[in-house]
């Protein structure tokens, strides 16, 4: 072991750049968590619906996204979305659409994973609950919104949060699109200063601290909520 460490690349000036990268990671994570849960809930309800057509459509969507690596999904969206948006919204080709593509790709991809969690959550609520809601004269949507989903949400919150941690880690894969998130900035700075070793270790440590502390919070919360 002859390597001489030099962590001076992790300095105040570069930390600003790294913080900017972290902001990109956070933005993608936040958008994809919110959009993923919204779309995931709709997919889960489709999968539990009485229409065979809707059930099958939702099942194909979920199976497709779960069979393909996230990197491939990202490559697809970086290919298609810019062209599509240019045609639909008449945006000039010079406009940078990497961020928009990343947001859409992550949201649609994560929705498939969220829908599985949410479906299990909805199924965990006893069927007596929906019968009771229907007996009170509620429609399907009302029963879902007022009775089933609030309880299901409570049961699945720890899993949704854990999936959020996974998603935050997944955002580092935007590296394939040359969109620079936290990992991209760290690696870029390391290459520029000839300090790839130090910057990669630093990036790994930061990811670990963020994810590990958040997972401790989730575990704590799980103990409080789950009776």
């Amino acid at each position, binding site marked *: 072991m002859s390597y001489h460490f030099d962590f001076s690349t992790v300095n105040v000036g570069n930390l600003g750049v790294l913080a900017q990268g972290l902001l990109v990671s956070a933005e993608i994570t936040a958008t994809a968590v919110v959009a993923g849960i919204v779309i995931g809930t709709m997919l889960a309800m489709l999968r539990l619906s009485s229409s065979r057509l809707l059930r099958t459509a939702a099942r194909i969507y979920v199976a497709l996204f779960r*069979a*393909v690596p996230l990197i491939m999904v990202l490559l*697809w969206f970086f290919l298609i979305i810019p062209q599509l948006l240019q045609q639909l919204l008449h945006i000039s080709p010079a406009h940078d659409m990497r961020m928009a593509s990343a947001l859409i790709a992550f949201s649609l991809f994560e929705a498939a994973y969220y829908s599985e969690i949410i479906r299990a959550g909805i199924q965990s609520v006893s069927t007596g609950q929906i019968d009771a809601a229907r007996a009170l004269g509620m429609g399907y949507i009302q029963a879902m919104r007022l009775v089933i989903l609030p309880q299901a949400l409570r049961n699945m919150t720890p899993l949704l949060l854990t999936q959020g941690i996974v998603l935050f880690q997944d955002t*580092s894969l935007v590296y394939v699109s040359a969109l620079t998130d936290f990992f991209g900035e760290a690696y870029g700075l390391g290459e520029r200063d000839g300090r790839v070793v130090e910057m990669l270790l630093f990036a790994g440590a930061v990811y670990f601290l963020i994810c590990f502390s958040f*997972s401790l919070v989730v575990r704590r919360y799980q103990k409080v909520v789950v009776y």
Partner: protein
Amino acid sequence: MGYDWHWRVFLEPAPGHERYLDWVFSGLKITLTLGLSAWLIALVLGAVLGVMRTLPNRALSTFAAAYVELFRNVPLIVQLFIWYFVGPELLPFGDALKKIDPVAQQYLAAMLCLGTYTAARICEQVRGGILSLPRGQRLAGQALGMTTVQTYRHVLLPMAARIIVPPLTSEFLNIFKNSAVASTVGLLDLAAQGRQLVDYTSRPYESFIAITVMYILVNAVVMLLMRVIESRAKVPGYIGA
């Protein structure tokens, strides 16, 4: 859709005595070899760590728990870059590593990365499997005068191994999907071949569709295979069987 499909592009000659179709298959071969070799590492290491997690020895179980937290809380691509760029600098045989063929370096880094990463997940499954057994099984082993090693070898592990097959299926599927990350250090797996095909043929849709179909096929084959294994491994009359 005014797109002009041109599927015959795969039959056209690629640089260097090949057709573009051969690129797809060579990528598939690397993805499969990488996934399978990493899976072996993950199974062995994961089983050892999973057993350690359930041992009465405090030091061993803490070590396994720390391993799981470390490998679960750092993104896969960061781990891969650390194996690839930092590994040769810090490992004792690093200088020898730097002299070997670059493709072998990429493959080695990706295999170790995927293997150790997946081992953390398998560890949790193995631990769950062992803990799900009724406590009486372990106690019965001890009551018969078995040592800890014997109790694991003859009582706990044979049952746990069969119980954890279904959760292992999803990890086995994941390892092939996760292997696409190897393309970021330059290994020419399926995903990397996809990007190379786009560059050479200027046929992005055909190229990506071909590669995506390959991943879906791998997924389907693994699922069918595991279904057979699952039905053979299931314990008659046991919960979930």
